[in-house]
């Protein structure tokens, strides 16, 4: 399955996002940021690429701050 990444400004936000998305049935997992993506924190969230739009909507509606989705 193809994967994409949600990037954050802080690990703390990544942890919150992981909990929020998993609770909504999205297979999200905190992983180290892949080398081809840059980010301010060491972690990002790996999600199924097909869930990108849904994840963005859920994070926005839950007020979880994130940098961007992609890569």
């Amino acid at each position, binding site marked *: 399955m193809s994967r994409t990444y949600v990037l954050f400004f802080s690990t*703390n*936000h990544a942890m*919150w996002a992981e909990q929020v998305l998993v609770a909504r049935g999205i297979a999200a997992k905190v992983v180290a940021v892949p080398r081809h993506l840059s980010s301010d*924190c060491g972690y990002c969230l790996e999600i199924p690429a097909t869930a990108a739009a849904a994840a963005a909507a859920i994070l926005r509606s839950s007020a979880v701050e994130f940098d961007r989705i992609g890569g």
Partner: protein
Amino acid sequence: MGSSCGPTGPEPGAAAERVIYLDNAATSWPKPPEVLAAVQHYLLEVGANPGRAGHFRAAEAGRLVFRARRAVADLLGLHNPMRVVFGANATWGLNQAIAGLLRDGDHAVTTTLEHNSVLRPLHRLQEEGRITLTVVRAAGDGYLDPDEVRRAVQPGRTALVAVTAASNVCGTIQPVAEIAARCRTLGVPLLVDAAQAAGAVDLDLARDGIDLLAFAGHKGLLGPTGTGGLVLADDFDAARLRPLTVGGTGSRSDSVRQPDFLPDVLESGTLNVAGLAGLAAGIDWLHGPGGGPEAVGRHELGLRRRFIDQATARVEGFQVAGNPAGPAVGVVSFTVEGLSPSDLGQGLAREFGVLGRQGLHCAPLAHETLGTFPVGTLRFGFGPFNTAGQVDLAVAALAEICRQERP
């Protein structure tokens, strides 16, 4: 205890048999076994620094810290767990709020019931000529009048009202929501010291209208010592707080500027992850086996009542400081006529293993208000693991010490 000390020290059970621990207002003991297991799990099996590396152990440490943040947020009615900022204790949270918010020329309001961890940061700013301060006097029974707090506010000048949710001397629960409503009307931020109340009193920042709340993780929340912090209401502008400490956060490492987002902006340096893992387990215990904070609060209040009733009946000259019957957490301060609290406290500990705390409890103005300054009182703080049987033993011990000490 010396005889039970082997090469690895005394057995935990041995100490528990000999001691009736009634000093839960200082820090709670024992902790639920789940708290020990969580601390051990982190130290043995996780062990990494959250947010400071890309490996999976560091991610797991980050998850443990997040669980504690979520648990505190849920307990206190916050939507956003990023608004829970961890520090070493309640004192840190109070200092961060007070020194972080007040600017030169501001006026602040506090009360005579406060702990020195509120009074001293405010007093220092006042002594330095940076703020003016009004200290509202509580009634002699240990309760604040919300309208007196409102009258102390100087519209346009007052930048902070700081009030305890429950007295650490006499246990009285304060009308925090009523005070908050008045502060909201006047547009003045309210800082609540929940060191004694959290875990036993139902507090909800959104419902009650509290802006800032400092908590201790190691008292009613049943976590290890070295845990506590500050919580910011969902609608409180975090930019108003100047960080007490700046430094490494693991975020925005490309910049020499402190990040501006919560919790990182107020949370520099490695956290007490072992303690926070234990704190999350402590709060889980409160909701699970403990039956919920309100049930725990009722249990502790029941022990307070039982103690007061029995000691009043059995100990001549027994006197409770503050209101013996009003809303309270499981904390009671008392004196016995003709006997010094310090002799009583030492005698109870030495002869009967009944552990309370004598003196002024870091709250000199509260003792003045209650009429127990400068000698102080003996204080018992009941916890979730104390029993009615222990209260009965403590009363019997108190009666016996009084018999021995009286000429």
